[in-house]
């Protein structure tokens, strides 16, 4: 069996209680695997814990319990081991303008990783190759620029070039295109796709945008309130969604089709400091609301806890729902 590039097992991250609220269970039991050379999209609304999960994957947040494994080895949180790990896994953030130090020019921003790890022998060549790979050609034209002298798309390419400079094997991208213009979005996604195709990189891309998963991912995981509620291949999950939350997310995409009939979920995005009992989606679930009397009693969505999805990448699809028969693992 292949060793996954990146894996999390039973990951839980709880932030301490603040201002009279309970502790926030941002990530509340997640199994997820990114295979070698695979692009996995992690989809969810704000506050579902997807960014916290991404930060845990690169070792920026220490899990409360559970494990992050790189090439089958659990992450060691000593400063030295983390630093070594960070050569292999790179983070790309949402807002490229903020992710670049305004006082560093492009050369220094890209050279930062190699310098931190003492890989300065062929620094010029590394920077040049990274910039070229990230689509900033010719590199000479960009090295002396400062972040504010570039467009958002170019800034994001610099961030990606900085990640590539360490020759990583995994990229974790948190909303890499959310703050970019529509036309630039596709260009950056093409770049991420080409990094996988040409360099064999694995990637976990975190986003709120299901279209992004359709554009670049091999597998997709849908996250709700700290848990993954459905995961599987992109075709299976997006074309034949089983979980009511995935269905709702797909239905609200404003389509050019005339008969836009969104399944609107009542209420606001849920609160990780007050997770409902049983199935955490049941207060907003249309299927549960439609049940009555004995059926409702039998389903028990409001009392029976759901098991954590195994994250098995070979399964076509996995769904955490009491009402989807026989599929929850």
């Amino acid at each position, binding site marked *: 069996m292949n060793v996954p590039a990146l894996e999390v097992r039973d990951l839980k991250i709880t932030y301490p209680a603040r201002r009279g609220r309970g502790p926030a269970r941002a990530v509340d039991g997640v199994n997820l695997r990114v295979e070698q050379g695979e692009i996995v999209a992690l989809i969810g609304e704000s506050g579902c814990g997807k960014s916290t999960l991404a930060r845990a994957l690169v070792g920026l947040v220490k899990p409360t319990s559970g494990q992050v494994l790189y090439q089958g080895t659990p992450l060691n949180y000593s400063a030295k081991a983390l630093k070594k790990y960070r050569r292999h896994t790179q983070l790309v953030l949402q807002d490229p303008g903020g992710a670049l130090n305004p006082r560093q020019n492009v050369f220094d921003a890209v050279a930062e990783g190699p310098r931190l790890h003492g890989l300065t022998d062929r620094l010029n060549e590394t920077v040049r190759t990274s910039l070229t790979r990230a689509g900033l050609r010719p590199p000479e034209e960009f090295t002396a620029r400062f972040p504010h002298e570039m467009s958002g798309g*170019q800034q994001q390419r610099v961030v990606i070039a900085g990640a590539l400079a360490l020759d990583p094997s995994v990229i974790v991208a948190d909303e890499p295109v959310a703050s970019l213009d529509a036309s630039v979005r596709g260009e950056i996604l093409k770049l991420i796709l080409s990094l996988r195709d040409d360099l064999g990189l694995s990637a976990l891309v975190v986003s709120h945008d299901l279209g992004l998963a359709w554009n670049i991912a091999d597998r997709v995981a849908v996250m709700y309130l700290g848990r993954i509620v459905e995961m599987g291949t992109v075709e299976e999950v997006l074309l034949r969604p089983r979980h009511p939350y995935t269905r709702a997310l797909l239905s609200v995409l404003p389509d050019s089709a005339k008969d*836009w009939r969104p399944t609107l979920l009542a209420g606001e995005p849920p609160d990780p400091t007050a997770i409902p009992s049983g199935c955490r989606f049941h207060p907003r679930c249309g299927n549960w609301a439609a049940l009555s009397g004995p059926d409702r009693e039998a389903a028990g969505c409001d009392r029976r806890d759901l098991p954590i999805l195994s994250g098995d990448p070979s399964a076509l699809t996995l769904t955490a729902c009491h009402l989807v028969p026989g599929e929850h693992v």
Partner: protein
Amino acid sequence: MSMLEVRDLRVTYRQGDRAVPAVRGVNFTLDRGQTIGIAGESGSGKSTMALSLLRLLAPTAEVTGEVLFDSENLLTSTWSKLRAVRWAEASVVFQGAMSALNPVRTIGDQLCEPILLHDKVGAKEARRRAAELLDSVGVPSRRLGGYPHEFSGGQRQRIMIAMALACRPNLIIADEPTTALDVMVQAQILQLLGDLVRDSGIGVIMISHDLSVLSHMCERLAVMYAGEIVEIGPSSQLIDDPRHPYTRALSRAFPTIGDPDSRRAPSGLAGDPPRAADLGESCAFAPRCSDVTPDCRTRTMELWPSGPGRLAACLRVLAEEGGPS
């Protein structure tokens, strides 16, 4: 006579001794009950254009042309007339609901303010109307005494819409009303706006970078690039059969899930938007266009008819439609 008629609207920002054109000659009309969407990327001038209609721009912006609102040119009208038009006849839903609401005053006070100001009613009546408004946008009216930070992002945007509706305007300008909201909340807000418009016959100008959001909300679409409208027409036609290459690129930017062409094939547009200083009379899109002809770089662009009720500023369209050349 249309409710709103915009003629050759131009906005130029003064930066020291430099003049930076942001809007370069925009024309369109809007009738009561009609909806028009303005699409474009950041820097295309879409927000500047919309805000200039009510003279909401900073004094460094120089606005020329005509904005005829019920036959009154708002660009030259007196301040008192303009103030009367703002809120009472035309109001704005801003992008960042948190920054557009005053954090130290209750929602109720802020909702009552325009009503008291324009409708000359008593405090009690204003309060009643505010409660009604809040209910109509789906926020419980018992929360009139709440402060902005006590509401979620989606609720704040609803409150912004309620404020825009406070004086029963004939025109609403919505500037990226759903940007920065989650998809689920975005759908809720869009549905709310859609219902309000259908029921009340208000004219709407909606600005967004997302064509699919606009196409679903608006009857007509105008696509802006580098300060100009490059294509305008009925939204369904613009989406299904875009004639201008920029519209085509925008409509492909967000894929339709299930469309095999876009699976593992994101579509983008190479290159960067032009700098305002480099713009001339020829096609501003030519440097990024995959279908460019030598003429594109020299000929003056206009909006040429590209079908029934449609215009596009593209030489290819002009050639195909057999217009005067």
